[in-house]
């Protein structure tokens, strides 16, 4: 990188070599209109909105793709560029259905905004009125090809960010269409519904089924928090209006995912169907009955006094709650553990961060299914594979990553992977609870060349680790105190204790067995912190208030501790 000097609109501008004219102009405070350009994506130069005049060049140039060079003299806003941009807009408006009055994006649409900026009060070209498809075969979002301007932001997001390669273009010229796989309905395609395309679409072509018509940008509130659906801990931009949760967006330039989310973080939690626990419940005459907090906590305190007790936490809550939980159990002299298993330790190698996957040249996946859970890690592995990294899967059952792996071997053959990786520059081993001892042994020759990413199956496993919670099975005690939060429970979970206290957000087979159920907040009602896979302590912001009778676990646990002192 070296400094270059150019002139933009008569102003002397200093830029870095390697920057585009668009970036150099932006750095100098000159906004050039764009449509197909998106800062998180590669440049494409398709829409021609960003055309500028460059002295010595015969034709207008697209600023988003033109490298800035020393001595360039550029004009970004002239009568000619204005007219060309307006002409481009006229062509776009005449092609498909860009009628704003019944579009959910009206008011927030980049195409509309550009048309306003260019005084487009009508267009001169006739519309062909070709009926394009509306594809609503996916659960969470809809593709309306009538609104599409073929900017290919979605294609680039699918390719470059999600590295899923579902989207592409088919046909040419006026027949060009966005296509999923070999032109199949989106719902039947290889789409993983990460929603990145939805977030980058500049028009109303991609429609979020939940938030459409729910409020324009000027009407909504944005709150940043941390995703609690798995331990990756992506930043979320949660969009609400009044007290309604509208949409979840990724946050560009945030750690660790850089704006990429997955279906578990972006969509699924907004479609929760389990029945919420909204008031404390106590068992009376064999039936769970609503009670006051005072009564419920009194019952719990009485049961705990002088009894043997086991505390079991699903690590689906805040660091604060986990610490209060461990503290209470210590105070009571009870045993405390976590419900989820942990990934084994290797005894060699150095810990990696999630982002290390991206610049590895050899990735070993063993005993883990990151495309099914902690999916961002799976997408990162795909991205690394696209950049040329070798992916090796060690698995005794089917693994979705095998499709993109250079080799897939059974645990017994793990030595083959160790040999193949021997000469690699940077080896990242992604593993989880399924990692077998023979694989650990087979990879040992790689030693400290291995950076390892141990995927904790719990949402806040690192938070639990910090307060010393280790996996435990339910044992026979007088009282079992189960901190469940939003975590679904396996039907097979059998708690043999005589008296069961369950602190949970939803009704489940476990709350059905409980003697006392204490309601907990949901992910978007929480404040506090979680510790991510990378060991970063990230804050949670309450996006919406919890129902009146729902209390945070840490508050309840402290109240109990006080009652028992």
């Amino acid at each position, binding site marked *: 990188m070296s400094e270059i000097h150019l002139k933009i609109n008569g102003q002397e501008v200093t830029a870095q070599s390697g920057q585009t004219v668009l970036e150099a102009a932006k750095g100098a405070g000159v906004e050039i209109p764009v449509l197909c350009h998106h800062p998180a994506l590669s440049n494409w130069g398709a829409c021609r909105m960003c055309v500028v005049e460059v002295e010595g060049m015969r034709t207008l140039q697209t600023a988003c793709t033109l490298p800035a060079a020393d001595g360039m003299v550029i004009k970004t806003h002239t009568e000619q560029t204005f007219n060309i941009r307006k002409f481009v807009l006229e062509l776009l408006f005449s092609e498909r259905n860009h009628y*704003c*009055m019944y579009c959910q994006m009206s008011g927030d649409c980049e195409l509309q905004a550009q*048309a306003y900026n260019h005084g487009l*009060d*009508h*267009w001169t070209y006739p519309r062909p009125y070709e009926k394009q498809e509306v594809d609503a075969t996916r659960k969470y979002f809809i593709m309306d090809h009538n609104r599409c301007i073929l900017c290919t932001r979605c294609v680039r997001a699918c390719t470059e960010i999600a590295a899923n390669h579902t989207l592409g273009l088919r046909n040419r010229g006026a027949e060009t269409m966005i296509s999923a796989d070999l032109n199949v309905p989106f719902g039947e395609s290889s789409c993983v519904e990460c929603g990145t395309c939805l977030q980058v679409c500049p028009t109303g072509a991609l429609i979020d089924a939940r938030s459409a018509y729910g409020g324009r940008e000027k009407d909504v509130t944005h709150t940043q928090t941390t995703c609690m659906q798995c331990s990756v801990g992506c930043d979320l931009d949660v969009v609400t209006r009044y007290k309604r949760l509208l949409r979840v967006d990724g946050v560009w330039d945030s750690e660790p995912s850089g704006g990429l989310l997955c279906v578990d973080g972006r969509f699924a939690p907004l479609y929760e169907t389990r029945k919420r626990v909204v008031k404390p419940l106590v068992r009376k005459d064999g039936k769970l009955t609503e009670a006051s907090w005072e009564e419920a906590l009194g019952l719990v305190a009485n049961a705990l006094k002088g009894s043997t007790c086991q505390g079991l936490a699903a690590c689906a809550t805040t660091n604060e709650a986990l610490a209060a939980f461990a503290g209470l159990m210590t105070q009571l002299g009870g045993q405390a553990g976590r419900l989820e298993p942990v990934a084994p330790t290797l005894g060699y190698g150095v810990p990696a961060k999630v982002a290390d996957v991206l610049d590895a040249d050899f990735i070993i996946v063993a005993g883990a299914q990151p495309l099914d859970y902690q999916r961002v890690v799976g997408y990162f592995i795909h991205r690394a594979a696209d950049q040329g990294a070798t992916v090796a899967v060690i698995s005794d059952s089917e693994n979705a990553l095998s499709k993109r792996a250079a080799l897939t071997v059974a645990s017994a053959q793990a030595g083959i992977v160790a040999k193949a990786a021997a000469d690699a520059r940077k080896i990242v081993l992604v593993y989880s609870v399924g990692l077998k001892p023979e694989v650990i042994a087979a990879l040992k020759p790689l030693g400290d060349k291995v950076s390892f990413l141990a995927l904790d199956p719990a949402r806040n496993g690192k938070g639990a680790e910090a307060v010393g919670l280790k996996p435990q099975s339910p044992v026979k005690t007088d009282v079992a105190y189960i901190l469940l939060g939003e975590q679904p429970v396996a039907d097979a979970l059998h708690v043999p204790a005589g008296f069961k206290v369950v602190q949970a957000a939803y009704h489940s087979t476990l709350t059905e067995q409980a003697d006392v159920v204490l309601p907990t907040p949901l992910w978007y009602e929480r404040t506090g912190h979680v510790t991510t896979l990378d060991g970063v302590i990230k804050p949670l912001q309450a996006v919406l208030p919890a129902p009146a009778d729902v209390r945070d676990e840490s508050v309840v646990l402290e109240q109990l501790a006080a009652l028992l002192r």
Partner: protein
Amino acid sequence: MGKIKVATQWLEACAGCHMSFLDIDERIVEFFKHVELTSSPITDLKHPPEEGVDVGILTGGIGNEDELHEAQEMRERAKLLIAMGDCAVFGGICTMRNFFPTAEVLRRGYIETESTVDGQIPQHEDLAPLTDKVSGVGDVVPVDIYLPGCPPTADAIWYVLTELLEGRMPKLEGKVLKYGMDGG
């Protein structure tokens, strides 16, 4: 100087643009100090006078042969023609039927709708046949000023009219250029 003569007519439209015009509220008093409304759908006389008007305002798209005739008549009789509202500018919501053959649209509308019993497609010599496709006014006669919006806000309409009264050609930008309502 005499009053400026203005005529309006609605074509294939919902009347919302004329309602939006009435939303100029008390400004209408000031307006009529300078303007004579020779004809409009909401006054007794429906056609612009043969001797012509200074400004003709058309709302709505062209969806049948009567509307085509009305547009041509207004164009002939107005020195300056305004296409007001999204339907007049590019056909607007009326163009929804452009994706279907006319016969199918009529059959669906008059016979197949779920609430219809023994429906029939109305046919009478006084009924104007539908055009093949709905279009904006500008597709059939030359238009001087386009005022989009569904409907254009009262302020946008007021801006255009007052600019003309001042002898300037209005240039729509900023707040007065909107394709929908309320921020859209």
